[in-house]
């Protein structure tokens, strides 16, 4: 039998023994629980959520395999030397590493399958192939570290210390000690988080960053393998070569995120060509509304359009040059798009179109864009008494079929400092047939859309009586009269006094 065949048999022997370790099943049970708990936070998960969960679970798989591999690693470093056999000590260690890698990959594949199964099929979003490989590389770091640490400690101290520290850590974060205790724990936590992912900007969608991250994890993996081989009881050139390799790999592991953070810092914006699948992504125009989803999120356009097409359908043709460009920004990175000024409506990957809250937010943003009111991201302004303020409110709510009125809509209205008359007309518009409002808008679009047109004129055109005060900002009492469902808090809701008038 050849040495390769013997190494294969030893790998199989080790793999069977690793798979028989009860700690493995404890870890997998914990991982499965984590999958369901984490995905439970995402009522409408997409591919990026599943990927993030897979990466989190990979860390648990790595920790599990670290513990499981420590036992045979100690067997090799402490007890295997008594056996003189064709398969030498380095070959035995490599076989153990191969077996641990095999078991780890199977476990991680199983957990990835559980993630996808728990999230359901046909998820929107795309993840680069590098990112798909990263959780596997992350998980593999665990057993490599297990062999390396066991090789140098030659004891179970690396398993015993965490078992002792875990209850202390639990007590620390769950008792009053947290307010008076040392900052060391939070620093260690921060360092551990940065060690797992030291990149300032990271997204599984960005091909180049995913490649850097995968490269970083592979380099760390290589460091542990080299350190494990250097721990073997041998002297001379081979140990020197192992240490040299470890040093080079470590330098690479430090340099990779350093370079990536310099090149792709917080302020970096990424064009679609940098995204996986972005080359084929095009903005889509439906009934004069433009949609620019991230790669893989094209199915969401249907729901976005279902949300916006009805209210915007009440607007005249001349309003179409102000129709919004709905674009999706990335999680963890800024997307570079050439948007027409004042027409961008941003949605995030966390904002599922199936969520009523985000549908309401989308309608609000679109209505404000059409009537030229600033978005949240451009700063607030005063639109007190302007006709377009109640019209914005009307457009954001007309045709909405989400049941009860969204109380958050009051926040959007309050943010522009409405007068009592604005509130009265906005409320009256709810009772006015949409077709009647559309008719008035068609006849007086430019006029009603102008900042100088008062709400009283809109009321006059619609034949609505206005009894409330048209000048000045509505008081808390007036809010309670017209919007009892919304708790108006002037100090939080209104723009700053120095804010400009909406132009």
């Amino acid at each position, binding site marked *: 039998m050849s040495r390769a065949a013997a190494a294969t048999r030893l790998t199989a022997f080790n793999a069977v023994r690793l798979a028989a370790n009860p700690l493995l099943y404890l870890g997998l049970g914990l991982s499965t629980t984590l999958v369901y708990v984490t995905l439970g936070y995402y009522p409408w998960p997409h591919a990026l959520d599943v990927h993030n969960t897979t990466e989190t679970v990979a860390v648990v798989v790595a920790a599990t395999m670290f513990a499981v591999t420590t036992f045979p690693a100690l067997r090799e470093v402490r007890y295997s030397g008594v*056996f003189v056999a064709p398969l030498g000590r380095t070959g035995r260690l490599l076989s153990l590493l191969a077996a641990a890698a095999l078991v780890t990959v199977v476990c991680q594949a199983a957990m990835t399958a559980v993630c996808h199964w728990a999230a359901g099929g046909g998820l929107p979003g795309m993840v680069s192939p590098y990112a798909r490989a990263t959780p596997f590389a992350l998980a593999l770091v665990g057993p490599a570290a297990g062999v390396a640490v066991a090789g140098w400690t030659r004891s179970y101290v690396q398993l015993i210390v965490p078992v002792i520290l875990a209850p202390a850590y639990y007590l620390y974060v769950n008792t009053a000690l947290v307010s008076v205790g040392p900052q060391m724990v939070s620093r260690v936590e921060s360092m551990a988080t940065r060690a797992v992912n030291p990149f300032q900007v990271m997204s599984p969608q960005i091909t180049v960053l995913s490649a850097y991250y995968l490269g970083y994890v592979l380099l760390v993996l290589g460091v542990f393998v080299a350190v494990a081989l250097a721990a073997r009881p041998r002297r001379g050139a081979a140990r020197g070569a192992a240490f040299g390799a470890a040093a080079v790999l470590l330098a690479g592991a430090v340099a990779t995120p350093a370079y990536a953070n310099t090149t792709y810092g917080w302020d970096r914006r990424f064009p679609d060509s940098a995204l996986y699948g972005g080359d084929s992504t095009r903005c889509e125009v439906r009934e004069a509304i433009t949609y620019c989803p991230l790669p893989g999120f094209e199915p969401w356009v249907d729901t976005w359009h279902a949300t916006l097409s009805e209210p915007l359908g009440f607007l005249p043709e001349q309003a179409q040059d102000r129709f919004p460009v709905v674009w999706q920004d990335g999680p963890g990175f800024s997307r570079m798009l050439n948007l027409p000024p004042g027409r961008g409506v941003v949605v995030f990957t966390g904002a599922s179109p199936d969520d009523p809250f985000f549908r309401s937010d989308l309608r609000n943003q679109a209505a404000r864009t059409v009537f030229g009111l600033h978005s949240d991201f451009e700063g607030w302004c005063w639109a007190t008494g302007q006709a377009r303020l109640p019209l914005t409110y009307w457009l954001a709510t007309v045709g909405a079929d989400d049941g009860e009125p969204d109380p958050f809509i009051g926040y959007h209205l309050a943010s522009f400092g409405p007068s009592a008359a604005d509130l009265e007309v906005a409320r009256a518009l709810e009772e006015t047939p949409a077709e009647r409002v559309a008719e008035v808008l068609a006849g007086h679009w430019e006029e009603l859309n102008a900042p100088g047109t008062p709400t009283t004129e809109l009321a006059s055109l619609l034949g609505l009586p206005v009894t409330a005060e048209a000048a000045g900002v509505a008081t808390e009492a007036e809010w309670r009269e017209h919007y009892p469902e919304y708790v108006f808090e002037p100090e939080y809701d209104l723009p700053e006094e120095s804010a400009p008038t909406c132009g």
Partner: protein
Amino acid sequence: MTDPNAPAVHARGVTRSYGTRTALDAVDLDLGPGVTGLLGRNGAGKTTLLRCLATDLEASRGELRLLGRDPRRAPERTEIRRRLGYLPQNPEFYPHFTAFGLVDYVAVLKEMGGRRERHDEVRRSLDRVGLYDRRHSRVRRLSGGMRQRLGLACALLGDPELLLLDEPTIGLDPEQRIRFRSLVSEMATRSTVVLSTHQIEDVAALCRRVVCLDRGRVVFDGTPGDLVERAKGRVWVQRERPREGVTTWRLADGRYRVLTPGETGSSAAEGGRVGVEPTLEDAYLLLTGVERNAR
């Protein structure tokens, strides 16, 4: 090149040093089939020699060929290891293995192919050392003697051409030692067995050749009979405690057994001495204790 007629062990001037200390000093040996006993006091170099023969240590100087191959060359060393069984002194085994698991692990290391064949061989090996019934016991639950036999089972795997046993009978009870002797005798019909031990009875019972080491040098190489012959006329029994400077011990009947270097039957009358037939142990003690002092 491999010479099929070459002795299993061929050593010329084999020297092994640890820093400034020389553990083996220009050892010359040719060993063939049969059992060769390796005797010597603690620190004489027996274990170092066995480790060199087991390819676990490389000789610092000299020429060593094992089973017709050069252990310094990696491919040949691998080939030697395929044909070698080695029981080290006081072996420590991974305590979480079962007896079967441990021997199976070593069988995998020894490149034994096919799971079924391998397991058959593991069972056979455990049976030969009388541990088959304890095959499911964890190593940590086995007694010292059982662990020793377990090590022997590992060494016997695959009927090695060269079997090296370093203190194999430590911890064995008399019954197990008899069984061990029978096993080694059987192995010696087709293999070269090197047995390092302090148990002179084992050597007397098993070996047709004895090599004595002292301070890393071979001080005797011959048959047990030759060694005993050298002690003739130097072993006495007397009633009075002998003078200082001779090797002696008190017997159960109150008399003293005396080993006298350089003295022969001419002084037999002194102190009521009665000359007796020397044993192998007498000869060994004279060689390592007395002759060394005389050198």
